[in-house]
């Protein structure tokens, strides 16, 4: 297993697409922090009574949301690029234990995505806080230590999307198909669910992956398309299921299919 892990790690860090994805993710986080400067500027120019409507949180949450897509794409191409070039056969000849190969890939991609996700969510939060300084935005009254765990939890959705992308890549073997399917879960499905009438929009919105970290942190889902009906434990279980169930399917298919 150690060898397979080391090999996957080497593979991931020796292609340019990995750096492209991480660069876009980092650039997006930088952009979020830049927007915070703009928000601070707007705050200074706003009359006191209108300041109550100016929220910083949507901006802070944007980083993790975009990082989910970027790292999901990383997960997809980590598999589909091998299928496209035929290198999957080389990989399977080197590591014939297919479950082991998938596990190694998932572990490496998941770890990178977790690191990137935490960097983005925590970075967005701390960066924007630093930028707005002492300005008392209505949703930034709590001390940093109080809000930080929520953002740490928000980072966990990023590896889930990355693993979902990886599994879909194995199942579909096509970058286009897998990316579109991930986008469907990431954005189109929430949009559609949002259009459902109550109470179904809230029920369905509660089990969408994007809304699970808030529920894990025990926060309400106000101002979002998601719901907040799950307990923290149940939300964590559902989030894990989004990563593990597709991975199980992928393992099942990979071991049975001719390469």
């Amino acid at each position, binding site marked *: 297993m150690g060898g397979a892990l080391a090999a996957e790690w080497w593979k991931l860090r020796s292609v340019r697409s990995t750096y492209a994805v991480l660069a876009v993710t980092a650039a997006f986080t930088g952009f979020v922090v830049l927007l915070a400067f703009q928000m601070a500027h707007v705050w200074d120019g706003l009359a006191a009574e209108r300041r109550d409507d100016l929220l910083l949180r949507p901006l802070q949450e944007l980083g993790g949301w975009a990082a989910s897509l970027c790292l999901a794409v990383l997960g997809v191409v980590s598999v589909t690029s091998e299928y496209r070039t035929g290198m999957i056969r080389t990989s399977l*000849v080197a590591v014939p234990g297919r479950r082991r190969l998938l596990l190694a890939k998932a572990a490496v991609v998941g770890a990178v995505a977790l690191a990137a996700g935490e960097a983005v969510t925590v970075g967005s939060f701390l960066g924007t806080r630093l930028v707005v300084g002492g300005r008392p935005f209505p949703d930034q009254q709590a001390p940093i230590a109080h809000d930080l765990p929520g953002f740490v939890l928000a980072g966990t959705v990023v590896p889930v999307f990355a693993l979902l992308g990886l599994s879909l890549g194995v199942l579909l073997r096509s970058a286009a198909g897998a990316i579109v399917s991930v986008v469907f879960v990431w954005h189109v499905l929430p949009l559609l669910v949002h259009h459902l009438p109550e109470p179904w929009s809230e029920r369905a919105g509660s089990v969408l992956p994007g809304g699970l970290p808030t529920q894990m942190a025990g926060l309400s889902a106000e101002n979002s398309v998601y719901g907040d009906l799950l307990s923290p434990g149940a939300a964590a279980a559902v989030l894990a299921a989004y990563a593990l169930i597709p991975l199980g399917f992928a393992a099942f298919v990979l071991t049975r299919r*001719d390469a």
Partner: protein
Amino acid sequence: MIEVRELTKRYGGTTAVDRLSFAVRPGTVTGFLGPNGAGKTTTMRVLLGLDHATSGEALVNGTRYGSLRRPMREVGALLDAGAVHGGRRAFDHLGWLARSNGIGTRRVAEVLERVGLAGAARRRVGGFSLGMRQRLGIAAALLGDPGVLMFDEPVNGLDPDGVRWIRELMRSLAAEGRTVLISSHLMSEMELTADRLVVIGRGRLIADTSVRELADRFRRGVLVRSPRAADLTAVLAAAGAGVDTMPGGALTVTGLDVAAIGDAAAAHGIPLHEVTPHSASLEEAYMELTAGSAEFGAVTR
């Protein structure tokens, strides 16, 4: 040691390999021959655990490839040299392969040196020529210093220098006591490289033989010229040979070898001007063997 026993592989309704059995022994280069679509690549893919056999088994060193802990140390394979990620550097491509099988990265430099790519180690594979990719694929096969090597059409698209290099490499690998299996659809190439031949057509075994045996099997009689052709015909016919008179007076003798013909002629004092054993070229032998088993033959009118 490679053993294929009663191997069958079906893709949906088409049977790619049909109850195929053969063995490849160490110390020899074995040519795996057949027309395009005969099932050579499929057999190799099953041997490497890439495709699942419908029935039967394909073993390397007595075990299934999939159950090997560090397979590249026992089996090296080159399937499709083009199947590399173009954005990766040559060193990185071999690097991850080495790490996956617990092979030290120093070995990467060694094999790059051996295949003559040491100077291109830091270049991206996407910019490699076909010959360079082929060398990179062979470097990957040699990475684990394996006792069994399999190459699928290794000389495809190579220049004469490259072809000769591969030929000499294969022979030296076999001389080191390794088992070497090379698939090809070109008999002329195998004639120069292989000691043994496994010929298949439409997924079935046609011949499992040595190059010499195959040449003998397709011996086409002995060409004899003599100023006393009529006398010689009578003598040879009496000795039990079949004799045909060719245009120009030469005789084609079947059923007796060169020595027996010479002895018979000498016993009767008949002078001989030429005695030449005639055999079909291996190319012709191969065409004859595989006639009718090409998957998509041209229609001759």
